[in-house]
C-alpha cells in the first residue's frame, strides 16, 4: 500500500510537470490537454464533496458547470459586443475580467444548487438521481431555446478573458490559473473534511439517524455540502468556457454529469485526489484512444467495469487501501 499523501503529491507534481515539459519541447496542445484535465478535475472535486462525503449521487452537476459557463459567456458577450446588459434595476456593460466572472459564476451556481438542493433533498436514492438529472435537463433545454445567447449554437468568445498581470492567451499561463484554482479547491476540500462540518457530513452519509440522535440535521448538512459542491463545479464551468472560448448548451448535457461521476468512480469516491486521478486518466484515454478509434468509450466502459467489480474504492482505494482512517 502506498501512503495516500505520497500518491497525492506525486499526482499533482505529474499534472504540473507534463505541461512544463510540453512548454520546453514546444507542444502547446499538450498544455491544453493538461488544462482540460485540471478543469475537469476541479469540476469533479466539486461533485466529490456532494457525492463522496455527502453520499449525494447528483446526476445533474452539468447544471452548475453550465451555469458557470454561461456566466462567463454572457458577461464576456456583452463586453465584447459593446451591448450593455439591461438588468432592469441597473445597466451593466459586461466584463472581460476573470475574477469578476468567477465571482458571478460561483454565486450563480451556488444559488442554483441551493434551490435544486432544497427540492431534491426531499428525496433520496434513485429519486434523487432522477430529480437532479431533470433539473440539469431543464437548463439544457432552456439554453437551447435562449436565442439571445445563441440558442443551440452557443456563444463564441473572441478573446480569452483577462487576469491582472497575466497574458491568459499564453497556454501555460492559463494552465497556471486553472492549476492554482484546482489546488485551492483541494485545499478547501481537505480542510472541510477535517473540520467539524466534515465529520458531521461524513456521518450523515453513513448513518443519518445517528446524526439526528446527537441533535444535528443531516439534511441541512447535506444541503450545505451540495451548495459548496455546486459552486466549485460552477467555477470549473467558467474556466472550461474560457479554455474553449466558447459556451454552448452541451455544457448542460447529461453526458457531462455522467462523465464527472465516472471519473470520480475511477479515481476513488470520497478520496481527496480521486477526481484528479480520474480526470487525468479520462483526458489521457480520450486523447490516445480517441485518436485510434471513435469507439473509445467502450474501452472506458470496460475500465469502469473493472474498477467497479474489482476495486470498489477506485484506483486510489486499490493503491492506498480503504478510506476513512484518522
Amino acid at each position, binding site marked *: 500500500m502506498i501512503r495516500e499523501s505520497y500518491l497525492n503529491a506525486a499526482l499533482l507534481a505529474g499534472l504540473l510537470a507534463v505541461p512544463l515539459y510540453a512548454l520546453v519541447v514546444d507542444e502547446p496542445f499538450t498544455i491544453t490537454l493538461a488544462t482540460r484535465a485540471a478543469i475537469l478535475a476541479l469540476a469533479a472535486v466539486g461533485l466529490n464533496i456532494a457525492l463522496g462525503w455527502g453520499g449525494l449521487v447528483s446526476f445533474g452537476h452539468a447544471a452548475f458547470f453550465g451555469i458557470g459557463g454561461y456566466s462567463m459567456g454572457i458577461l464576456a458577450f456583452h463586453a465584447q459586443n459593446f451591448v450593455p446588459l439591461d438588468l432592469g434595476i441597473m445597466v451593466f456593460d459586461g466584463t472581460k475580467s476573470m475574477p469578476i466572472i468567477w465571482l458571478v459564476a460561483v454565486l450563480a451556481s451556488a444559488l442554483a444548487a441551493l434551490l435544486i438542493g432544497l427540492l431534491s433533498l426531499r428525496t433520496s436514492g434513485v429519486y434523487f438521481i432522477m430529480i437532479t438529472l431533470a433539473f440539469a435537463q431543464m437548463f439544457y433545454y432552456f439554453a437551447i431555446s435562449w436565442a439571445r445567447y445563441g440558442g443551440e449554437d452557443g456563444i463564441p468568445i473572441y478573446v480569452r478573458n483577462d487576469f491582472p498581470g497575466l497574458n491568459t492567451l499564453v497556454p501555460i499561463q492559463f494552465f497556471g490559473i486553472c492549476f492554482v484554482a484546482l489546488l485551492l479547491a483541494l485545499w478547501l476540500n481537505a480542510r472541510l473534511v477535517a*473540520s*467539524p462540518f466534515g*465529520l458531521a457530513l461524513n456521518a450523515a452519509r*453513513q*448513518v443519518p439517524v445517528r446524526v439526528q*440522535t*446527537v441533535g444535528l440535521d443531516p439534511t441541512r448538512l447535506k444541503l*450545505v455540502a451540495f451548495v459548496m459542491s455546486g459552486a466549485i463545479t460552477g467555477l470549473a464551468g467558467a474556466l472550461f468556457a474560457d479554455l474553449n472560448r466558447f459556451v454552448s448548451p452541451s455544457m448542460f448535457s447529461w453526458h457531462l454529469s455522467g462523465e464527472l461521476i465516472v471519473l470520480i468512480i475511477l479515481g476513488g469516491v470520497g478520496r481527496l485526489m480521486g477526481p484528479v486521478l480520474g480526470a487525468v486518466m479520462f483526458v489521457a484515454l480520450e486523447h490516445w484512444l480517441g485518436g485510434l478509434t471513435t469507439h473509445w468509450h467502450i474501452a472506458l466502459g470496460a475500465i469502469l467495469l473493472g474498477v467497479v467489480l474489482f476495486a470498489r474504492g477506485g484506483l486510489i482505494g486499490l493503491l492506498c487501501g480503504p478510506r476513512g482512517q484518522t
Partner: protein
Amino acid sequence: MTDNIIETRGITKSFGSLKASDDISIDLRAGEIHAIIGPNGAGKSTLIHQICGGLAPDAGQVLLGGQDVTALTTAARARKGLGRTFQISALAMEDSVLENVLLGAMGASGRPWRFWQAIMGDRSLRERAEAALERVGLMDQRHIRTSALSHGQRRQLEVAVALTLDPRAFVMDEPMAGLGAEGSKNLTGFLDGLRAQAPILLVEHDMDAVFALADRISVLVYGRIIATGSVDEIRTNADVREAYLGEEA
C-alpha cells in the same frame, strides 16, 4: 408540572391492523431506572421510536421535562436532552472510534457549522469525547476503525456516544443484546452508576440485568402496558407471570 423527565400520555400506534402501541402512558422520574420488558414483537422498540422522534404516534403525546415534544424532530428532542442508544448499533463504521464520540460531543456543543478549523484541534470537544471513551473503557481503541470493533465494543461505543451528550435522560434499547454473560455484568454495573447522572428508560431482555437494575418495571405485551411496579411486585404479579414469564397463574 410534574417532575417527570420523560412522559408519554396515551400513545397509540398501528401498523395496518396491528396495534403496536395501545394507549401507552409511562413516565421516567429523576434518579431512577425504569425498565420496559416484554416478549419479542411486543412493541418496545416502537415505543422508543415514538419517544425519541423517529416515528409519530397516531394519538397521544410525548413530553420531555413537562414540555410537549410530540411535533418535534429527532434532532430537536436530542437537543432537549435525550441520550439514546440503538438496539442495532448505529455508528459511522468507516470512521474511527474517536470520531464517533466526537460527533456526539459536537452535537452537544451545537456548533457543526465550522468549515475551516480541524476538529482534532478542538481541545474542548476532544476532552469531552475522550472522557466518554474513558468511562466505557474504549480509550485504547480510539484510533481503530469502528468496523473493526467487536460486537461488545460497539455496544460500549453506543453508550459512549450517548454519554457525550450529557443528556437529561437516557433511553436505551436492549443495550445488553448479544453481550454474553461477562459483558452484561460489566454493563449492568456501569448502568447502575449512571442513574445518578441521569435517569434511564431501559428496554432490556436480560432479566438478571433488569431485576438487578430497575427501580420500576413496566411490562409490555401486544402493545399494552399490563403492569407497572417494583421488581418484587412484577415478580409476583399473576398477570405478568401468565402473559410474559410463561407460567401458570
